[in-house]
């Protein structure tokens, strides 16, 4: 068979992404039709920049999800096909089996794996880890930043000192110190996970308790159910038989996160939370002087009610913008970890690892490194544009 021309490659790639295009068109049509009823999200569709950013982000989100459902991927991202080593984009397979896709659309890498499928599989890793890690970092930052800003004083001094301590640490050095196998063996990352992942529980617990304290009949069952489920998830997440933290027996363990992913997750959350802490603290210090906070204090509301139900909702604008930026930053950090071969397994299809693999032969074969590089670039760019659009629209009120 003849290799594909550039035009054919582009057509076939566009066709391969068909489910993503359908979902994008559906999402955009629905959102634009109902944009007046959708609050800040709807206002996003008034700004061109925001729309472009949102489209880029959702493109990768859909790609990740459909890729995980085996819709877009043409080959197994880990399988090696003989004769396809470092082949250029559009090369046909030597003797394809029945039902196997006959071309390597974006060529083969130095281990004869399909670059296109690895790109799509890499999107799923980012889409899974980056938003979740950012959510955790926000939980930690908010739970510590609100009291630091609201109470001030000694608590603030101590917490700020700790946050500055982590911020003064060069990120890559921290990664090297946390992610090496020797440190993982001592269980330090698992202990850190135990501490960091408890913050969502504290956050939700305090959030619900401060709101429904006056209705014990509603509050008690609600807290028991919510915290029970979250506690179970928490224990399943951190507990892993064979490591230092094995708290619950295997039959109760809902899912097993491979220890490499867990370590990566912990270090990314750890690096991100001090910055969130500083932002939340600053916002809380600013907002606590407002009249509605004084009014709530006069009403006799508790400090946690004021922090979580008066200050936090009014700080949402800057926080949402920072959330988008921070997902992008987390994506960059994940790429950095992959680039230095830390944490994730060497054959993992995530973009950082793929770029690192591809760069060795960059002088001769461009495609194995350029494809994931451009993917990462477009995803982070999308998030930054989205944040910019959101900032503009939220300032307009």
């Amino acid at each position, binding site marked *: 068979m003849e290799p594909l021309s550039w035009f054919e490659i582009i057509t076939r790639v566009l066709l391969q992404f068909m489910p993503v295009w359908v979902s994008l068109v559906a999402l955009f049509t629905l959102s634009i039709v109902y944009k007046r009823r959708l609050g800040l999200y709807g206002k996003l569709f008034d700004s061109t920049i925001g729309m472009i950013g949102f489209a880029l982000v959702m493109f990768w989100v859909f790609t990740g999800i459909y890729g995980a459902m085996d819709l877009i991927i043409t080959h197994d991202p880990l399988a090696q096909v003989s004769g396809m080593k470092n082949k250029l984009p559009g090369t046909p397979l030597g003797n394809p089996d029945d039902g196997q896709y006959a071309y390597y659309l974006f060529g083969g890498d130095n281990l004869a794996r399909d670059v296109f499928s690895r790109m799509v599989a890499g999107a799923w890793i980012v889409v899974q880890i980056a938003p979740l890690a950012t959510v955790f970092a926000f939980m930690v930052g908010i739970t510590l930043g609100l009291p630091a800003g609201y109470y001030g004083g000694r608590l603030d001094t101590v917490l700020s000192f700790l946050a500055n301590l982590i911020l003064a640490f060069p990120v890559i*050095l921290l990664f090297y110190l946390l992610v090496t196998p020797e440190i993982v063996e001592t269980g330090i990352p698992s202990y850190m996970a135990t501490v960091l992942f408890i913050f969502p529980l504290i956050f939700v617990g305090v959030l619900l308790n401060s709101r429904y304290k006056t209705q014990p009949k509603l509050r008690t069952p609600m807290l028991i159910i919510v915290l029970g489920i979250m506690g179970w998830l928490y224990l399943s997440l951190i507990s892993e038989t064979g490591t230092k933290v094995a708290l619950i027996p295997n039959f109760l363990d809902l899912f097993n996160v491979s220890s490499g992913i867990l370590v990566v997750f912990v270090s990314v959350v750890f690096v991100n939370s001090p910055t969130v802490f500083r932002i939340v603290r600053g916002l809380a210090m600013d907002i606590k002087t407002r009249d509605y906070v004084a009014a709530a204090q006069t009403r006799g509301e508790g400090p946690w009610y004021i922090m979580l139900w008066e200050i936090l909702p009014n700080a949402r604008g800057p926080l949402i913008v920072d959330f988008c930026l921070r997902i992008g930053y987390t994506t960059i950090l994940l790429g*950095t970890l992959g680039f*230095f071969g830390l944490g994730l397994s060497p054959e993992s299809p995530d973009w950082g690892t793929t770029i690192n693999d*591809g760069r060795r032969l960059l002088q*001769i074969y461009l495609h194995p*490194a350029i494809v994931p590089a451009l993917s990462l*670039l477009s995803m982070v760019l999308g998030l930054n544009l989205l944040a910019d659009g959101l900032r503009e629209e939220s300032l307009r009120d």
Partner: protein
Amino acid sequence: MGLFILRRLGIMILTGLCLTFLVFTLTNLYPNLEKLAKTQGNFRMSDEEVSSFLEKGGYLQPMAVKYGEWLGVLPSYRHENPDGSIQGRCILPGQSAEDAPNFCGVLQGHWGFSTVFKDEVGSIIGTRLGLTAKLMFWVMVLMVPSALILGVLSGMNEGSKTDRTLSTVAITTTATPEYVSGVILIAVFASSTMGLKWFKGTATSAMESANFENFFLPVLTISLYGMGYIARMTRASMAEVMTAQYIRTARLKGVSFPNIVIKHALRNALIAPFTVIMLQFPWLLNGVVIVETLFNYKGFGWTLVQAASNNDIELLLGVSVVSVFVVLVTQLISDIGYVYLNPRISVT
């Protein structure tokens, strides 16, 4: 002002001590030491041999004591061998125990010995830091002026077409981490596939003689990432200054637009970017590690990667001390500079 600097210095020293202790603890955990013993001795050591090796080196003392010795505030550990000879950290080969100093730590200038490079840590860090300083100097020369020009141009007419275009450029560069822009730049300008071959894809030869051909790509790669951020800060502060009353007054007086920008607005608009530029240093450190690895330029960042991936404990400690020190000093300078540039900020 003096009291302010003193207090900042105090906090800085405290932070430095905490951070170095943290690094010291993490690098001196037992699995690391075991690996060290096995690489120094042989890989088939039994557990008893490992612990006796570590015992001799004084590695099995409490963490705080070891840290004190490393820092040079506690007398260093000495081990008496069965034959009566005494060995210890401070006692160099061929030196008798009586002549050797009691204290030898970072404070006395003893940084230890690198197991990977087989050399004194102090001299390794010195050379490598020199190479990185060369890189950073050119990064600053390229990054700061271009970022400021970009920011001022887009900030002086907020919302104009120039502003839109330049802001998009700035956002794109901040969205491009070094390992992405480096790969793209090498692919476009240095690979044989694209055929341009304007620059070299490695900077190894730039360590002795840097020229435009072998040094421009690494410098550009680091600059691009930081540039967008500084440019956006400059743009924001420029846009704010341009709406100020005194600018309007100058306009109404009939001062020409270039004059307003250069003489009236620029000075006030550059206060915020100054802090940002100083706070970029820790970031640049990250960029340096990535770019030096990517372009195989054997400077400070490259040394960090080598030390960390080869479990070279004393070198890694030295590298951490230097990088933490750089970060803290730039923070201090940025605080002091901010107060100095902006008289409205009170230090108390």
